[in-house]
């Protein structure tokens, strides 16, 4: 009554075919809805040998598939298995056929037979090797095979006829033996038995002297017949084993090589798209199936390489949990089919990176024996994707920590610069609110101070915002081809609006080409450079010139101030860097912004000292891309005051 709960027992050794036993055990237990137990008989007295370690691996694999695992110590396999079977009340015992025995020894001496003799109340199932199974697949006995066999034997007899006859059985025997072995190999065991009988008869009647004597049934001939049969059997067995082994070795080599090639190719991938491309190419080559990766994007799948093989897949939010459940509860030996395609979860260390979708060319499904290799491929792909994700995360984390560091240094640096103008504004406003009469000039003075200081604050905040947005990439550079003159003009306009007339000498050649630039940003750059020059050389003339050289536009702002101390040419572009001894004003952001703007245009900015004293800053902007078509020249001179009609249509 409790029979259904009696488990399935699977005996695992160290051999490679244990994997097939594990799978068979898992299947059987699933079919019968009973637990299953993987047992290993340790006959080495607990010593850790290579075999024991391999057995451990198989036991773990069985455990992964839900088996309870057990190790039994016993002097012989049969004894150990008997103990285990009795101890667990197993309803069935699965074991592999022991191979290292001669065919004749199999009968009656195998572990299975021994267990049978011990009178166990357990079904014993012996799993054959795939190689053995192939051996059992005898070719059909056809007319052609019969004719073939007879002609081989005929040829042998003809050959034997030529051999001097006097009792030379030693010479004739190998000829027939070779023939029978060949027949066995070619047409199977049935015909081989027939061929041995026939060759005995042929020998007795044709070759034995006296010919056609009735001594054919003499005992040496009978012995001859028997020896032939056994030798043929042995050779056939050996042949099959070798063949199966060779096939297996070849298959493994192919698996290892394809995994190695995939791993190497994946290691070179830098984006998920490249991973998808590489993986699908390799899978297509090895498995002869179409494949693509599906990466989860919010609410949908992104197929790499596109297109998705079966677009009707449920969204990631549904499919991924389902796949992970399937992986746990479903058949781990079978792929999950969706329409004509199969899906594998690409599970890395901690989570699913996506799905591998394959579409077999054969509608019957994947070729047998490829599923495990495909799973190994999926693991490699998942790891590659995971590696990319981690790299990306590490990069983000680095940026974040950089930002964090910058933020704290920013707070430290600007605390003072923010507080000073605020204190002045606050103080001045307080004085103005005091009861009592302030003289008109004092009042105006305080009010002017409030205005100046708030402008300073606005300027500082503007700079900070600009720099942050430039560095974070939040500002999109809108390059447009335009005359440099215009942006220089608006920068000078802004300077003058702020400071009144300034002694700035502008030298712009007439023939400058159009430059691709973001007017607002380059204006800001120029204003910063001019402000900087003006701050370090108050009242002195500033020279602004531009020239066009080797595919770039160069803009130079030069002053006659104290210049830049040696070794600081790079550092002055750092954020919050101020030259030692530089006076009030400026927080060390202006030049940092200049550099960020130049770089956002693909250009550079250099600082240096000017011959004859003072510093100079050179901005170089590339003239890349195709300059736009010049406006059409068909624009007639309109004589002022002469003809009031304008040329009609628009250009």
């Amino acid at each position, binding site marked *: 009554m409790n029979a259904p709960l009696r488990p399935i027992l699977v005996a695992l050794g160290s051999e490679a075919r244990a994997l097939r036993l594990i799978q068979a055990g898992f299947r059987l237990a699933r079919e019968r809805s009973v637990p299953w137990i993987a047992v290993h008989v340790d006959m080495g007295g607990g010593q850790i040998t290579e075999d024991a370690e391999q057995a451990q691996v198989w036991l773990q694999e069985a455990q992964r598939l839900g088996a309870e695992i057990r190790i039994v110590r016993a002097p012989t396999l049969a004894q150990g298995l008997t103990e285990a079977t009795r101890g667990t009340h197993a309803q069935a015992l699965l074991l592999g056929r022991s191979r290292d025995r001669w065919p004749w020894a199999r009968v009656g001496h195998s572990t299975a037979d021994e267990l049978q003799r011990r009178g166990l109340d357990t079904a014993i199932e012996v799993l054959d090797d795939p190689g053995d199974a192939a051996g059992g697949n005898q070719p059909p006995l056809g007319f052609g095979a019969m004719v073939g066999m007879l002609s081989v034997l005929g040829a042998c007899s003809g050959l034997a006829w030529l051999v001097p006859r006097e009792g030379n059985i030693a010479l004739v025997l190998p000829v027939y033996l070779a023939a029978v072995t060949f027949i066995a190999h070619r047409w199977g065991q049935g015909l081989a038995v027939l061929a041995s009988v026939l060759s005995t008869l042929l020998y007795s009647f044709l070759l034995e002297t006296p010919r056609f004597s009735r001594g054919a049934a003499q005992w040496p001939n009978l012995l001859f017949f028997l020896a032939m049969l056994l030798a043929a059997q042995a050779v056939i067995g050996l042949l099959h084993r070798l063949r199966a082994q060779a096939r297996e070795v070849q298959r493994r080599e192919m698996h290892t090589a394809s995994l190695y090639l995939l791993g190497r190719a994946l290691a070179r991938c830098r984006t998920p798209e490249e991973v998808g491309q590489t993986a699908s190419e390799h899978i297509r080559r090895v498995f002869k199936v179409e494949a693509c990766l599906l990466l989860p994007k919010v609410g949908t799948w992104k197929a790499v390489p596109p297109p998705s093989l079966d677009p009707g897949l449920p969204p990631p939010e549904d499919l991924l949990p389902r796949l992970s459940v399937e992986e746990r509860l479903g058949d781990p030996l079978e792929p999950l089919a969706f329409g004509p395609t199969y899906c594998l979860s690409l599970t890395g260390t901690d989570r699913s990176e996506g799905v591998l979708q394959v579409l077999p060319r054969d509608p019957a499904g994947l070729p047998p024996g490829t599923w495990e290799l495909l799973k190994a491929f999926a693991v490699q792909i998942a790891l590659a994707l995971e590696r990319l994700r981690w790299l990306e995360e590490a990069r983000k984390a680095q940026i974040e920590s950089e930002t964090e560091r910058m933020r704290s240094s920013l707070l430290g640096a600007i605390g003072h610069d923010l507080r000073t103008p605020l204190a002045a504004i606050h103080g001045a406003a307080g004085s103005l609110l005091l009861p009592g009469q302030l003289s008109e000039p004092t009042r105006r003075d305080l009010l002017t101070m409030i205005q100046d200081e708030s402008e300073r604050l606005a300027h500082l905040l503007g700079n900070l915002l600009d720099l942050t947005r430039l560095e974070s990439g939040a500002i999109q550079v809108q390059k447009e*081809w335009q005359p440099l003159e*215009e942006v220089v003009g608006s920068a000078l306009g802004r300077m003058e609006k702020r400071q009144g007339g300034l002694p700035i000498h*502008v030298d712009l050649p007439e023939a400058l080409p159009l430059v691709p630039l973001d007017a607002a940003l380059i204006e800001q750059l120029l204003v910063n450079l001019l402000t900087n020059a003006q701050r370090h050389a108050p009242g002195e003339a500033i020279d602004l010139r531009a020239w066009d050289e080797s595919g770039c536009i160069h803009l130079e702002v030069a002053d006659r101030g104290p210049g830049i101390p040696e070794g600081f040419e790079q550092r002055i572009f750092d954020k919050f860097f101020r030259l030692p001894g530089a006076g009030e004003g400026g927080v060390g952001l202006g030049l940092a912004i200049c550099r960020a703007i130049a770089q956002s245009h693909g250009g550079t900015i250099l600082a240096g000292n000017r011959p004859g004293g003072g510093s100079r800053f050179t901005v170089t902007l590339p003239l890349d891309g195709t300059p736009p078509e010049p406006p059409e020249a068909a624009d007639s001179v309109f004589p002022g005051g002469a003809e009031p009609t304008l040329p009609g249509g628009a*250009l």
Partner: protein
Amino acid sequence: MNQPLILIIEDEESLRRFLIPTLSGQQYQVLSAATAAEGLAMARTHNPDLVLLDLGLPDRDGMSVLKDLRAWSRKPVVILSARNQERDKVAALDQGADDYLAKPFGAAELLARIRVALRHTLSADVADPVICSGGLRIDLERREISQGGRPVKLTALEYRLLEALVRRQGKVATHSQLLSEVWGPGGEGNTHYLRIYMAMLRKKLEVDPTRPRHFITEPNVGYRLNLDASSD
């Protein structure tokens, strides 16, 4: 004429506190609203002569408020925007706003913009055909242009560009507005045409083309013709 009525739609209290007395002190009548809904309702009931509209309102996008206003009113709208919002500014101007002021702005700048915007509507019918500013003299009626007393010859396109700027009387004109007015529909993509012609205009009409007094560039937005330039 009555004092012009100005409606301020601005959610920040401190700015309203600054705007209201500044404008009242200049003999304008002032109404203020802190939300888009309130502002639109006030605009409908009072029909102000000018609206100061903040683009960043709590309840609605300033741009859609502008669209609503423009659906029934041609009265000038001056946008108040934060710095570095060129795209928004251009979009607002193309949507029919008359001008913009970038925060922070000073009282003098504010009053100047309001004057320009109001002058435009109030004098739209009786536009003075002759404009004098600095050394620049533009007579649209007779198509005579002179700089520093010397007559200047313009090409047809230069003239049309100048005309388009003059028509705005000191208000900013976006690139796309100027392009479609001067080059006609289809000219929008060729901003560099505009820049080249603007450079030519400056060469002919400015004393120092690198320090323009009249043809002011609003970076990434457009141009404005400054008609209050002092004499050079």
